[in-house]
């Protein structure tokens, strides 16, 4: 019963495969001035989409017509003190042709919003939630834009450059504990001769306890 096979990497792909640069050129042919001149650095091709409102359209075309079926990553950058403040970076990859393309777009701080691409790649759902959670960039049309790593109700956006590394004090939601955890605070006191092990072991023991 051959349940799995060990495939060899040589896919029967018709040669020549378009390079990333050619694929970026095809994107430019379709969208014209919306797409910037491709930049090449360390063998990677980056194009900038000048109007963030049309990013979903560009991504949809890249997926359906250019074969970029895998969204590897979605990152956000805070260009603090510059205008526009946000940059959103999409790492596109095609499993069929094995090419990589980076799309970038800029979003101003006063708007801080751009369309979601979760309709193009479902994986963008969590990536966009993370970008929203960490930077506070809103993805319009996202099915469920909630915080993902921080908790619901957290008031800050920790990856912004104006958020200090040491963090800011916040109120934790009070659902977890109704009293301090046994090992929270101090001083830790061991009671010799307690009636059971819970009474003997080192715990936070305040004078009134």
């Amino acid at each position, binding site marked *: 019963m051959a349940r*799995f*096979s060990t495939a060899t990497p040589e896919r029967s792909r018709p040669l020549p495969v378009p390079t990333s640069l050619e694929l970026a050129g095809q994107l430019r042919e379709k969208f014209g001035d919306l797409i910037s001149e491709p930049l090449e650095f*360390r063998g990677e091709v980056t194009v900038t989409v000048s109007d963030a409102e049309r990013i979903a359209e560009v991504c949809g075309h890249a997926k359906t017509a250019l074969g970029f079926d895998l969204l590897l990553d979605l990152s956000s950058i805070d260009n603090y003190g510059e205008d526009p403040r946000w940059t959103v970076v999409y790492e596109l990859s095609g499993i069929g042709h094995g090419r990589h393309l980076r799309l970038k777009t800029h979003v101003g701080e006063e708007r801080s919003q751009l369309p979601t691409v979760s309709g193009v790649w479902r994986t963008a759902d969590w990536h966009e939630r993370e970008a929203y959670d960490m930077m506070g960039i809103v993805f319009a049309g996202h099915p469920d834009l909630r915080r993902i*790593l921080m*908790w619901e109700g957290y008031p800050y956006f920790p990856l912004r450059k104006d958020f200090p590394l040491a963090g800011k004090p916040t109120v934790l939601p009070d659902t977890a504990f109704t009293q301090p955890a046994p090992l929270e605070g101090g001083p830790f006191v061991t009671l010799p001769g307690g009636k059971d092990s819970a009474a003997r072991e080192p715990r936070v023991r305040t004078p009134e306890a």
Partner: protein
Amino acid sequence: MASQTIEFKDSAARAAQAAQTGGASPGDDLLDLHGDKLVLNMGPSHPSTHGVLRIVIELDGETITKATPDVGYLHRGDEKIAENMTYNQFVPYTDRLDYLAPLANNVAYALAVEKLMGIDTQLPPRCQYLRVVCCELARISAHLLGLGAFAMDIGALTVFLHTFTEREKIYNLCESLTGARLTTSYTRIGGMTRDCPPGWVAAVRKFLDEVVVNFDESETLLTRNRIFVDRTRDVGVISREMAIDYGLTGPNLRGSGVDYDVRKAHPYLVYKDLDFDIPVGSVGDSYDRYLVRMEEMRQSVRIIRQCLDRMPGGPDNAGKEPVNVADGKVVLPPKNKVLTSMEELIHQFMIVTQGVNAPPGEVYFGAENPKGELGFYINSRGGGTPYRLKIRAPSFVNLGILPAVLPGHLMSDVVSILGSFDFVMGECDR
């Protein structure tokens, strides 16, 4: 003794009765039992979540109708931390991403920074072979744990004990290589902290001979085990299109039949010179993902053997092959040179205080790690620290598919599906 007559109606009798009483379907009396849906909280501290994953599950009887994963309980802000330190200082933080394969994380991170600096092609061959050996040892270690814990979660405890015996040997190898069992921090930008110690290559060979026996034993316990097969087969089926759409990578993607492996698709280090196969599944269920991992470990053994045979300088580096880039501005110079030569002293001072100097630019580098593609997107504005470092954590992306996979399964299948996904929350939450 009082006797009692218990009337048992089989389905045919129930159907006959239903026909007599006028068309009511035989299940009608059961419909009253359907009440509200039950919301069950699983985790964040649950044995099968292997860390702190919380899933809010909505149940209709025993069937899941909705699943909402809740991640972030282990969030430490690694990306924020990275912006505030030099490139080499971040290496220990990569140990703590996928803490089951720290060596592979070290290598992936070092390669990302080296790509940014444009020195990834200048790495000495011995360094490249050694790094591949590290990656594959980490893969075996991570898969051994993944399989052991997977089997244990669905009731086969023995496998766990078998695989942990071998993992212990890998930890011993890590210890003699790096000085630490878990927090290896082995790579530096432009090379390694040190070459492998004398006798290490022979120890790895001995380990490989032993571990293949263990693979066979573990496989005997699982692959044709009726209980294991029943719990995993056709459970958590992910189609090829769905897997790509949700961005799955690693064994979870290949289990669905997509032969995408970064080591083949975008070869780094010396992978293009090595001979190995990429196992792919055909159905995309938990059983396929198990089979793929099992075969990947055997392929890793094959890769390591080739690397050890070809490693330049020989096992104990009799040929004095370098393991670091020959650039004093990137790699710390030898201590005796620092104490005697002005130029090396300055380099040492600059690297330690300001970090290696990276050019402005941006790169994405993805490496095939045990859990999937671990990617680093580095945006540099020049200098010794990244302006932005984004970690593409495979576990994070892989878990994003849970809301689509879990509904329709039984509650007990959750454990099987989570086990077959083989995620690590340290990496997911960063």
